[in-house]
């Protein structure tokens, strides 16, 4: 179900869990705000991870922790230190891409 909420002064379409449903509405302010809500301060390393995630999304790669660990951008340990709680769920939300569907 799609609804909208105000993020960084803009009306943004999100789903029940707060993930953006229209990636075109994503920008850096949106990311900053969502990161803030997750109590994360975005450093250059965070941005690198977010960009990598978005690139995978464009390539339609199904994401999981193992792939992040093999990304060459961060290892899993670092990924956890950057996004301490539910890293993949948090990072994808901030990146404006869908929550990774865990395989069946």
């Amino acid at each position: 179900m799609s609804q909208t909420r105000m993020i960084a002064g803009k009306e943004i379409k999100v789903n029940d869990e707060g993930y953006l449903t229209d990636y075109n509405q994503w920008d850096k302010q949106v990311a900053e705000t969502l990161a803030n809500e997750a109590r994360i301060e975005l450093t250059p390393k965070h941005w690198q991870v977010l960009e990598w995630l978005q690139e995978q999304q464009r390539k339609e790669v199904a994401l999981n922790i193992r792939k992040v660990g093999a990304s060459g951008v961060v290892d899993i340990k670092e990924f956890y230190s950057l996004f301490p709680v539910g890293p993949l769920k948090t990072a994808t939300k901030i990146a404006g891409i869908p929550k990774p569907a865990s395989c069946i």
Partner: protein
Amino acid sequence: MSMKRILILGAGTAGTMMANHLRHELKNEEAEITIVDERHKHYYQPGYLFLPFDIYKPEEIVKEIEEFIPTGVKLIKCRINKIHTDEQYVMLDNKIRLDYDVLIIATGARIAPEEIPGMQSEEWHKSIFDFYTFEGALSLRNKLREWDGGRLVVHITEMPIKCPVAPLEFAFLADSYFKQKHMRDKVEITYVTPLSGAFTKPKATEALDHLLADKNIHIETDFAIERIDPERKVIVDYGGKEVPYDLLVTVPTNKGDDLIGRSGLGDELNYVPTNKATLQSVAHKNIFVLGDASNIPASKAGSVAHFEAEILTENILRFLKGEELKAEFDGHANCFIETGNGKALLIDFNYTHEPVEGTFPFAGIGPLRLLKESRMNHMGKLAFKWIYWNMLLKGTHIPFVSTNMQEAGKNF
């Protein structure tokens, strides 16, 4: 049609079914069919769930591979070393070379405990067990027979795994096993998963989370294991969270066989990228993949392999005649979930429809009920063993159960 060489790699659930289907459809002068497996025995893997609890005996779940390979199909028992796609042949460990026109990969998935530091330690099969192998399930049975209680942790390392409900069923069966032994009060059961709930599909997760709570099984979600400390007996996740255990029953990382990686055909977990509707490999037109070996987003289950085999058989016949493939596989899966105390749930779903409540296989009638605990479903689960040995492997169509999922009778 000139004589074609069809080569099947793996004589487990999927490969055996394909051998039977294809031999039935193709005359000896139309196709030479060969199947290769390194094992001598065929294991009924769903039985690994029951073996630890003394519900099945080892001899009920192991038979000779030969019994299920039809006459007119050549069975070679040897380890497969490498697939050479450029020249279209397969090399076996004994240096035998097998040329093919059509290759069917059915080498399944195996556990890879070596992926997690501390898992395959001194304590492997002492206080840390798997039940995804015959040896693991059997040594766990012996352990459970004498175990006097403590903290039992049932754990999934990472997804995807074969039969994704099996660990949950294990936790449910453990609950009823210890109740029967009058020692449930001495055992604390915790279910640890990398997922955000008991299962991957929302409606089923709701039903299953509820059952866990009913049975007093604690659940620890979003747990991405980094390592095991076998001395302190704790599992540690990347975020530093620790869960202590006395007895750890884990499902290690599942991977395709190394053969796939060595042959340059796999993804990061050695699964073969495969078209999810036609079951043709993405990289090579004359290579087809079914069962656990493929990367399609369907459950890794015997029931799925059964539905796939029916569609793949048609596609291979079309391919041999130079016709276009049918893009039909819908991801249909049908799984019984043992919930303990002689009851089970049944779920039926596909790529696009999650498991919901309803009746099966006859809309409005049943007799099986979807996503609800019942004794009838439990009988269904036990009957599955007979169906597996006597119908599934031989490629017999199961009456009333369609290859593609039916929407009738389901409450979407």
